[in-house]
């Protein structure tokens, strides 16, 4: 019988198979959801309607966590995930999920309520936004702590993952009623897209510089060209077009493109480009009368 696993684990770097699209969905849902909540926390201070942002943001985070529950081997023991807050970013992410849903949920249910002159919606949305930033930080550190995958352990993945989460959230926020007409949101999205493009380019360059596998660099480079054009230049162009023509449709398309390409990039990082180290030896053994061949740290 052919062994389905044996061929996958050779000496060369291989694409990891432990985390599939469900794990990618956690980073997509978590990033976009927290991005929506962070955006809501800002926009609430400008009297913009953020109830839909709160609701969709919490749903997206919840969706990501459900996908993780589906992925793990022993879901009925998932409570154990809280056992290692001292060193595990996965535990920290799980812990922060609780105040995130609490404050977000209170914000949703008591959005229009006022208590002793303080708007419950504004207060809880602000706190939820701060917690969401922490949750997003935990997610990017969780990815970055995976030493076995060079595409994730590369330090420059951290700022990229944070900014893309905010961009994805803001991109969807722009499509929500009552917000899409706000020029400030358009401008913020355009600026963040420029920052994201820069961080993506830096990430790709650092992978090359820090000896990521050929396969990883190839996937990131190939996707990067499409990502840069369709995920950044095009949305910025559409935002300019929307501003010049005073029409909303191009801005909506820009928001959706900015978000959707962020999701595709995450799927690329978490699944397609995620190669193991492989087995590199610095030199060969001396056998018989031969000499040791010095190979360096990488092959």
């Amino acid at each position, binding site marked *: 019988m052919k*062994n389905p696993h044996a061929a996958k*684990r050779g000496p060369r770097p291989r694409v990891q198979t*432990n985390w599939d699209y469900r794990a990618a969905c956690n980073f997509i849902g978590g990033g976009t959801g927290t991005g929506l909540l962070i955006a809501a926390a800002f926009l609430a201070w400008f009297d913009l309607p953020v109830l839909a942002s709160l609701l969709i943001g919490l749903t997206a985070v919840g969706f990501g966590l459900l996908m993780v529950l589906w992925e793990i*081997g022993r879901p009925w023991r998932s409570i*154990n995930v809280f056992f290692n807050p001292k*060193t595990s970013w996965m535990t920290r992410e799980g812990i922060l999920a609780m105040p995130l849903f609490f404050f977000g949920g209170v914000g949703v249910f008591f959005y229009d309520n006022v208590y002793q002159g303080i708007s419950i919606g504004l207060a809880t949305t602000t706190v939820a936004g701060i917690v969401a930033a922490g949750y997003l930080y935990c997610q990017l550190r969780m990815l970055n702590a*995976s030493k*076995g995958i060079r595409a994730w352990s590369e330090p420059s993945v951290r700022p990229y993952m944070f900014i893309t989460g905010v961009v994805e959230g803001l991109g969807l926020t722009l499509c929500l009623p009552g917000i899409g007409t706000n020029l400030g949101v358009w401008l913020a999205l355009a600026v963040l897209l420029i920052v994201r493009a820069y961080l993506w380019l830096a990430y790709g360059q650092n992978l090359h510089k820090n000896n990521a596998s050929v396969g990883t660099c190839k996937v990131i480079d190939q996707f990067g060209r499409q990502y840069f054009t369709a995920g950044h230049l095009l949305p910025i162009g559409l935002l300019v077009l929307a501003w010049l023509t005073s029409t909303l449709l191009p801005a909506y398309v820009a928001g959706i493109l900015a978000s959707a390409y962020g999701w595709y990039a995450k799927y690329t990082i978490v699944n397609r480009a995620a190669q193991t180290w*492989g087995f590199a030896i610095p030199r060969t053994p001396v056998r018989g009368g031969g000499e040791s061949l010095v190979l360096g*740290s990488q092959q």
Partner: protein
Amino acid sequence: MTRYVMVADLQRCVGCQTCTAACKQANGTLPGVQWRRVMDIEVGEFPNVKRVFLPTGCQHCGDPPCETVCPTKATYTRDDGMVMIDYDLCIGCAYCALACPYDARYKVEDPKFAYGDEPMPHEVHAFDEKMIGVAQKCTFCVDTVDEGIAAGLTPGVDPEATPACVNSCISGALIFGDRDDPNSPASRALAESEHFRMNEEAETDPGFYYLWDKKAEGLQ
């Protein structure tokens, strides 16, 4: 202190995979799971090309990233340096497998047997439901080591206290022992030979050494 380590003499390894087979027999691992593997690697550039047999598996790191990332504390390091998994705590998130730079961890979701879905009698005997859906890896045959120590034996010296892969190695390429004991077989081998560890850039202080040449006279 005690730090049990594995030493592989690359000058001696012939790539026979007896260690792999012995490990599978001793630990009852399912098809597709190889806690002790021997890589058959071609390295260099033509015409300077060489073939190397590289035993590998869990490196029982001194600073194991698998332990750091584990959200459940299922992965832990014993006082003697062996990195273990508590299968009752593990939730099977596989985060540890992704943190390992040595590709040493496995997770079996859907058990398959040597001849399909139905296990052979010896596979029924070895099958452990606890191992399904959780992370698993080389344990340095911890039960054998512990029982041997309890019986007053010395791991790496007495076969009854030594991992199966080491006992089975036909060329004596695999050596086990306490790195902090200068008289252990592992310490002596490291003192007498030039050696390296794999993927040192990952900074995990691996407990798996590779010998590549005898030390020059006077340097021992």
